[in-house]
């Protein structure tokens, strides 16, 4: 756990404040995702045609 800063702003009072709060950083992750390359897609279409799927 670390101390971090929050920048606070109120649109009605136009007051700016800095607040220090406790914070536990999230473990850095790589977002889960499926990467589709365009050349892979072309190969897939070619394969699907040969296999008479399409």
């Amino acid at each position, binding site marked *: 756990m670390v101390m*971090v800063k*929050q*920048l606070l702003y109120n*649109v009605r009072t136009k007051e700016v404040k*800095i607040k220090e709060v406790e914070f536990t950083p999230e473990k850095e992750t790589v*977002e889960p995702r499926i*990467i*589709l390359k365009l050349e892979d897609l072309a190969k897939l279409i070619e394969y699907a045609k040969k296999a008479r799927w399409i």
Partner: protein
Amino acid sequence: MVNLLSSTFSRKHADLIDVSTPHATADIADSAITTAKIADSAVTPAKLSFGCWEKVADITVEGSAVTDIVVDGLDLDTHRAYMIIFKVKNPTANSSGMHIFFNDDTNDANYYQQYLYVSGTDISANRANNSIFTWVINGKENNTWGLLTRGPTGIPKFHALNIREGGSTVSIEIRHVSWTTSANVTKIQIHSDQADAISVGSNLMIFKVSK
């Protein structure tokens, strides 16, 4: 010689000497009306007969990096929509998701986001149970243009179009964040999930619909 003192005192003369008499705008020549004669403070969106974007917050991080920018005093129902422009650089050693939270609900489980990311010929997509509206690589910068509105069922949804990085690695990142709670939004919190990943010079602007 005409004796002006003895001539009939007409209403026209009274207009000339009585400066307190209000004049109809029709009496004022268009050429006499210049913006220089209008005080800057008198030019407000409320004077317009149509709605426009009115800036309500313009916050730049100064001094040292922060983890959150919190904007309070908002009223989405009254203001109809918020346009959000966010420019951020991540100065940390780790990549960081930038989350958007509403009304102090900082529980990611109460949000969903769907994204489409395109970098060169790589295309990726995912739907995740969190409130990330842009993902900033360590040492890189992103620009966000977004629109926050409530849907017909009342759920606030944030539509974010992001430019990730820049120059030779400029990439497209589109994210839609949906809260699962149907409520008016009165507070917006931009939060980095790494400590102090919103660098000095980062800027957040929020605009409301004026009327």
